[in-house]
């Protein structure tokens, strides 16, 4: 593991915010941390980034770089009165990084930001600020990137663009990337590994697709005349218009689709619905 946090606990005013939590991520891997608001995601990330000292446990980052880990906590924090170049220059110069114009242009290019914007950062959209925040986090070539709710507040296009950027960074630069969200759809599309945190405890973890598949107990299948299907009578089903919400495990979905096809019912969509209650059930020892 490039980064690993072991047995981390933290309390604030006798309130336990993190309870013996462990997390790890490898080079080129994207790990997702899923949890509701107030679950302890941000506190865990602050501990990983060294901003907060844990009550127990250790954080280890395997990297020879001067800057082992970069990140964004609770949204990008930038000098709003400075432009993108100046922000990069400030954060770069204080850690001895090359802040020549060429180097800064490369930084901006690597996160897909325009190089001709010289106005202050306060004029940037949230998506652009996120990108600039990532550019700053990437200064000095850290081995690991920690992003706290990076998709928060972004429009669908912004989410898609940022997702692609994260995937590129992991694949091309072999960064270990840990990102958090309270929305599973955002994580499910890009994460290799998923961690589920609830009330300060890690309740579930594993390969993302496996975790999602194992905890998906309902599928929404839409098709014309689906309410007439005989095959569906074997399952607990709720009909809504031309869609059926079917209580079924993932392994039986292909068979059902085949049966529907045999009945002349041609599906237009098949959407799995994750059972959040099941996902957040404590299974980890």
């Amino acid at each position, binding site marked *: 593991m490039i980064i690993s946090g072991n047995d981390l606990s933290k309390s604030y005013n006798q309130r336990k915010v993190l309870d013996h939590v462990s997390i790890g991520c490898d080079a080129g891997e994207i790990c997702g941390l899923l949890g509701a608001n107030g679950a302890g995601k941000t506190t865990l990330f602050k501990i990983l980034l060294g901003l907060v000292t844990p009550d127990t446990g250790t954080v280890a980052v395997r990297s020879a770089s001067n800057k082992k880990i970069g990140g964004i906590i609770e949204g990008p924090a930038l000098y709003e*009165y400075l432009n993108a170049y100046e922000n990069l220059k400030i954060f770069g110069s204080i850690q001895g990084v090359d802040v020549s114009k060429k180097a800064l242009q490369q930084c901006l290019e690597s996160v897909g930001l325009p190089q001709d914007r010289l106005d202050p950062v306060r004029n940037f959209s949230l998506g652009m600020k996120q990108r600039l925040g990532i550019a700053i986090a990437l200064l000095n070539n850290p081995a690991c990137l920690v992003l706290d709710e990076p998709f928060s507040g972004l429009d669908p296009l912004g989410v898609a663009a940022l997702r692609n950027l994260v995937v590129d960074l992991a694949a091309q630069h072999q960064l270990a990337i840990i990102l958090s969200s309270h929305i599973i759809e955002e994580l499910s599309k890009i994460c290799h590994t998923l961690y589920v945190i609830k009330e300060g405890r890690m309740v579930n973890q594993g390969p993302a697709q496996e975790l999602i598949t194992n905890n998906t107990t309902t599928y929404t299948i839409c098709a014309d005349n689906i309410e007439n299907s005989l095959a569906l009578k074997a399952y607990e089903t709720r009909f809504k218009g031309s869609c059926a919400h079917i209580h079924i495990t993932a392994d039986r979905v292909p068979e059902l689709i085949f049966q529907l096809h045999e009945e002349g019912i041609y599906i237009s969509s098949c959407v799995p619905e994750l059972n959040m209650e099941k996902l957040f059930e404590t299974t980890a020892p």
Partner: protein
Amino acid sequence: MKALIKAEIFKLLRQSKTWYALAALLMIEGVILFSAYFQGKNILDILLDNLKKSFYFEGTLLNGNLLVYLILNTLWFHLPLILMIIVSGSLTAEYKDRTLQTIMLQPVSKWKFILSKYIVAIGFTLAVVGMLALTSFTLSYGLFGKGDLIVYLNTLNFFPSGDAFVRLQYAFVSGALSMVFFSVASLTLAVIFREATKTWIVSSLFLILSNLLLKVDFGDTIFNRVFFAKLNDTWQNFFYFNINWTLVYTNSLLLCGYSLLFMAIGILLFHKKDIG
């Protein structure tokens, strides 16, 4: 360390509030100058009232030197008020905007970071006092000319123009040390309180209390001689006919000591506290 200091200077100069503060100070200085001119007339009338019975006066005492002296009398309250806002704001703004967090996410030493803030605060304070000294002398001499300086400190002291100019310069240097003390104190308060409004209130309170305690006589005790509030009018010692250099050096060293103490406390607290 050099990079941190350069970054701090860059941030300070790029923020509009710094320039607003400098403009405000120049405006205040201008207003003080012109009100001092009219106040000066009254003061001279009262001071010289008894002497007028026995003497004719040749030459004018209402000149640039007197006006710079009168500016100095009021400057040391207004100036630290504004300095404290800018200096403490250099840290509280970073807490508020969370840029402090971003900085601490880079491989930057905590104590070096806060030390660089203290160094830049001190440099900024000295530069501002220098600017005010330059503008006071330029405006006062330019508009009202040079001449003897009259100061009442238990006795009526008359200083020839050249001597007055030197004493006024020393007064600015001495006053600058007081201003550095207040700037450093405000930054330490910013480390403790983190939030801008609370820091301003406490800093202003600190300044007001210092000014009030300056006038309280604690008797002929060591406390009366070394208490920090008592050191802030050291500049006045330059206007006794014979300057007590021992007292001036002692007070200046003590003020520097207090500044270093506040700085050490601030660095220690900042280093120990979590940023998140």
